[in-house]
């Protein structure tokens, strides 16, 4: 279930872009890059140490969208979420093969602190919404989520790097997501 509404205009734009991509309209791809490129590149940079590798991953993400536009289903969520998930998976694949591209736990945790603007770039409304939601989970839950998702760590590695028992790592990941889901669905914390 898609459990929160991103702004209506972004959703309408997504549908229209998806239709035009299916019709092999290259300008639609250029528009998708213009709208979501910075966010997608942001994900790749979060995961990978070297910018050139991150750029390649982000570019590959848009090429994947171009090759298989039908893989994006507007019913399941926004194009932004879809592209960021592809970028994350491609980036994590890379760092799991190339140890040297792995970000340290300290870097991952400090750079993704909510409210800490890494750049002064304006955010999409959906991102703003997410950043606000992230402030509602505990610091330790956020750290575990960041390490697992953007760090590409398994829950066992999360436990090791944070110096906590494996059971605690599992619980933090699960409880963090459950809490986040509640906040996004509109529950009052």
């Amino acid at each position, binding site marked *: 279930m898609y459990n929160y509404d991103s702004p209506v205009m972004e959703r309408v734009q997504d549908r229209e872009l998806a239709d035009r991509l299916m019709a092999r309209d290259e300008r639609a791809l250029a528009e998708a890059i213009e709208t979501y490129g910075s966010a997608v590149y942001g994900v790749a*940079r979060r995961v990978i140490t070297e910018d050139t590798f991150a750029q390649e991953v982000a570019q590959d993400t848009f090429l994947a969208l171009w090759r298989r536009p039908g893989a994006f289903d507007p019913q399941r969520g926004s194009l932004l979420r879809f592209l960021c998930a592809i970028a994350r998976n491609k980036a994590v694949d890379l760092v799991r093969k190339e140890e040297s591209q792995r970000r340290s736990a300290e870097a991952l945790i400090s750079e993704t602190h909510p409210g800490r603007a890494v750049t002064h770039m304006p955010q999409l409304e959906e991102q703003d919404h997410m950043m606000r939601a992230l402030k509602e989970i505990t610091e330790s839950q956020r750290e575990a989520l960041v390490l697992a*998702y953007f760090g590409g760590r398994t829950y066992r590695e999360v436990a090791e790097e944070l110096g906590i028992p494996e059971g605690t790592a599992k619980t933090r990941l699960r409880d963090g997501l459950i809490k986040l889901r509640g906040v996004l669905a509109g529950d009052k914390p």
Partner: protein
Amino acid sequence: MTKMAHEEARELLGAYALGAMPEDELKRVRSHVMSCEECMREADSLSDTVASFGISAGNAPLPADFSDGILETVREQRPIVAPRTAPRRSWLAVAAGVAGLTLTVGALFGMMAARSQVERQEKVLQAMLREDGFSLSGTSGAVAKVIPVGDGSVLAATGLRAAPDGHDYQLWLIEDGEPRSAGVFDVEDGIAIVETDLALKDYDTAAVTIEPDGGLDKPSGDPVLVSG
């Protein structure tokens, strides 16, 4: 492999949804999730939250040549994509020609049990009639279909000549232009039925080439059969 208990699997659903499972435990959790409606629903729902979390990395200013690099690649691939019967197509172009495919996991097909020629022909026909999977065609009149069966896939082909001496047919599943070998095979009376562990849902294209006996790591020639 021991079966994973419901409670144990539930504890792991967060890590599972985040793609943070160690290899050894992943299969066990997945097999529980597939057989437990409650866990499947929860895993789906948490995956949805993970997708939302994924947009929180923040924006990064794009390098100057970012967009041009993508659009150039798209343009370079454009001319080779158009004709389906073009004699030579690059692997990237093959992948680029495929739009989105929706696959459903079918019931067990029972194909490998087919012994007699008549049975084999019937199995091939059944595969051809399925709506899911990849349909392959080639210039020689041969046709084939790759369909999802259980955790893997099955290729059913008909109209293929025996591979030349010292050669085998090799099946490739391709994702984003990256071919992965799904096994080598030969044909019997024009029919081939080949089982592979690779799951079709991870790939966007299927192709068959003729390769030296035993097959190669990467295809060396043009496909004799290709989906798209």
